[in-house]
């Protein structure tokens, strides 16, 4: 079952914050976050394992609520380089390693 991301698109000014949500109908083992720039491969940002942890990567952090099967990606003080499409990917509770990607959230940061 494909996770659902919201919003579908975000437009920000440099320095503004954004939150991207990812929700699954199935029990999860882990959630991954990736960023893809146009014409390039997705790039791994972070992985969150069940346990409700929050992780950070520069000014990008994420949380995982295992009970609600939801994850959120937080982008603070956005920079132009943050523009791209953000995908969450979920691994089911069986932990087969197979990653199912959400439909993506397009983020555009303007000067």
């Amino acid at each position: 079952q494909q996770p659902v991301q919201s919003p579908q698109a975000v437009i920000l000014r440099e320095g503004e914050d954004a939150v991207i949500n990812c929700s699954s109908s199935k029990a999860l083992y882990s959630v991954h976050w990736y960023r893809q720039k146009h014409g390039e491969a997705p790039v791994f940002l972070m992985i969150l394992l069940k346990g409700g942890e929050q992780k950070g990567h520069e000014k990008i952090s994420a949380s995982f609520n295992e009970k609600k099967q939801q994850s959120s990606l937080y982008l603070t003080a956005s920079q132009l380089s943050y523009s791209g499409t953000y995908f969450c990917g979920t691994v089911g509770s069986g932990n087969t390693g197979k990653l199912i990607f959400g439909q993506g959230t397009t983020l555009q940061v303007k000067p």
Partner: protein
Amino acid sequence: EPEVTQTPSHQVTQMGQEVILRCVPISNHLYFYWYRQILGQKVEFLVSFYNNEISEKSEIFDDQFSVERPDGSNFTLKIRSTKLEDSAMYFCASQSYGYTFGSGTRLTVV
């Protein structure tokens, strides 16, 4: 930083022809995957490969598709008889923690 390498970067083929997409995963990774992305759409799982065999495949991965790791380094995806709807970007990935994706092969079936 270690990379996943894919060749060719772009392939144009006639409908019905066979294509082989090649990937060199990161050497100490054990799990390998093929995904595809139709232009502007989501990244779709095709197949996972572990210990020299398929561990899981999607409904997209029908009898026209096969994967091999012929020599312990290369990891190939073969499409036996291509269809127009096979046109997409195909990504190989290997995993230790997160996935590391290759730069992709853009397959165009005409």
